């Protein structure tokens, strides 16, 4: 099959590799029809994430058609499915509490050591995101092996476009869970740092959950414009001082809930320097945690901070004093995708949530390497690139 493979910093290629096979009873093989490049894939592209190996297949946002099933899979050939980016077993203690991203069994036993050393306990596996997260081949390919196919993938009814449901795999549930974690009450003002895909879905979700006002913060004009389309007020942090602007906009009270959708690193679990910190226990402290600091300082007393943004390891200058004195609540975590998929699929089918606005580019899989370059160089214009393995090159023009 053809697949987008990683070979080093700024070196990804579409190559011919062996097709995936059913290896475990609960596996299924999916023929990919749509797969997105995620902002966090750029961190792999930039070479920030350790434990990558030459030839690794990337991609964790994908959907397609079931073409093969293991004896314990509940899927049927021909079904269309969206696959969650988290690989979770569905039967451990955490999965039974719907804390899917905390699954005990998603990572191969040998790969659990690193996560255990870093976090105290191992987390779920992820598709296409280095060997620390399991070494699973990703979905920027013609085919993918999906473990635990009886609990992960959600079946999509016929007649609904890929583009409408693809983002159930990651960023839509992530934006939704972040808004849920903000515990929005009627009349609330919610501030969202970052208008990438996650932030933009936070904006939509916050309004659906009853927020009266949503204030979106970024510096890319096109992304701020998209936030405005959903009814958000905006702050361009290159033109205004974020804290001062928020205080003025909220009459000096501060937002009731603050959502940090910026982050230090993407999904990756690991900032570039974290692995070394674990190894040698020297705390060099990164100073890139601006958005979470701002969120804590701006938040109203007794308010809620929600942090879908991914942080790697240790952070310096975390305003623990402000956090304590103001009595804030912080909720965070990798998304429990499987938990949110069914309700969000319904919301899409009922037309309550629109996801297609996000897609700025559609390309054949063969052009994936160009897609990475484009996304990397033009963050204002490119909000989301969707790769379509079956797509005709001629269609792209």
């Amino acid at each position, binding site marked *: 099959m053809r697949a987008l493979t990683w070979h080093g910093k700024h070196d990804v290629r579409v190559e011919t590799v062996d097709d995936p096979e059913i290896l475990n009873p609960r596996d299924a093989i999916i023929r990919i029809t749509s797969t997105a490049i995620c902002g966090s894939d750029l961190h792999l592209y930039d070479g920030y994430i350790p434990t990558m190996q030459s030839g690794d297949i990337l991609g964790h946002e994908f959907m397609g058609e079931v073409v093969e099933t293991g004896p*314990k899979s509940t899927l049927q050939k021909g079904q269309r499915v969206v696959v969650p980016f988290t690989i979770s077993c569905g039967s451990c203690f955490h999965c039974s509490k719907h804390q899917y991203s905390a699954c005990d069994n998603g990572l191969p*036993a040998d790969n659990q050591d690193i996560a255990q050393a870093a976090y105290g306990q191992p987390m779920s596996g992820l598709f296409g995101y280095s060997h620390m997260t*399991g*070494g699973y081949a990703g979905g920027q390919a013609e085919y993918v092996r999906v473990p635990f196919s009886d609990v992960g993938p959600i079946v999509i009814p016929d007649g609904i476009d890929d583009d409408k449901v693809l983002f159930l795999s990651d960023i839509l549930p992530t934006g939704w869970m972040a808004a849920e974690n903000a515990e929005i009450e009627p009349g609330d003002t919610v501030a969202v740092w970052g208008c990438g895909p996650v932030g933009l879905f936070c904006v939509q979700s916050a309004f659906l959950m009853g927020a009266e006002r949503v204030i979106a913060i970024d510096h890319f004009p096109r992304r701020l414009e998209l936030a405005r389309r959903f009814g958000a007020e905006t702050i361009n942090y290159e033109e205004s001082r974020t804290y001062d602007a928020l205080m003025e906009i909220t009459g000096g009270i501060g937002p009731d809930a603050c959502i940090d959708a910026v982050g230090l690193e993407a999904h990756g679990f690991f900032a570039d320097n974290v692995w070394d910190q674990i190894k040698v226990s020297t705390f060099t402290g990164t100073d890139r945690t601006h958005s979470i600091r701002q969120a804590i300082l701006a938040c109203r007393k007794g308010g809620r901070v929600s942090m879908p943004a991914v942080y790697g390891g240790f952070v310096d200058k975390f305003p623990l004093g402000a956090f304590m004195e103001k009595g804030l609540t912080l909720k965070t975590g990798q998304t429990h995708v499987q938990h949110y998929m069914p309700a969000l699929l319904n919301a899409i089918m009922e037309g309550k949530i629109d996801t297609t606005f996000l897609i700025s580019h559609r390309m054949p899989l063969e052009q994936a390497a160009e897609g990475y370059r484009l996304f990397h160089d033009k963050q204002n214009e490119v909000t989301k690139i969707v790769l379509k393995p079956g797509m005709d090159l001629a269609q792209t023009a």
Partner: protein
Amino acid sequence: MGETMTPGRDDAPPGTSKRADRVEDATLSLVEPKGDSLSAKTVTINRPRQALYDYWRALENLPTFMENVERVEAVGDGRYHWVVKAPAGRTVEWIAAITEDRPGEAIGWASEEGADVPNSGRIDFRDAPGGRGTWVTATILYDPPGGVIGKVVAKLFQREPAIQARRDLRRFKQLMETGEIATGARTARQLAEEMD
């Protein structure tokens, strides 16, 4: 103060103790202790005690989740022939006898005279609190081949028994909770290479 206040003693399991005498206590919990290097490890498995005991008690099953155990064969009288992978493509073998067998609770074993690597161990199954399944504790005592040096070499090969036990317990948990053992491989060939 009464006897209940023993200074310096806590409720942590002996396998985690910094004190030599507690490690000795743990060693004595083995019916026929063999070896001088102790490792103990507990994992919670979301399944009933008896089911876990039953699978483990069929010792022939052990290679399904113990990566470095090539095979275990019954040779009669509660004795088993173990063939275990060692560094540099070698194998080590021994005959071990079941020294303790309490259905649903515990299994103990000890190698007989002449073992390549004298070892003994026990596996305990206890109800986890709050209906969360079973606590499975593996306690293994062994003579590292070549003493301290052997241990260092074994570590390089990731066959050091404490690491091996931790990973094997995780695989046992996966098999019991999910019916399979997670792998990041894409093809059968990659999977076979990983198992080597």
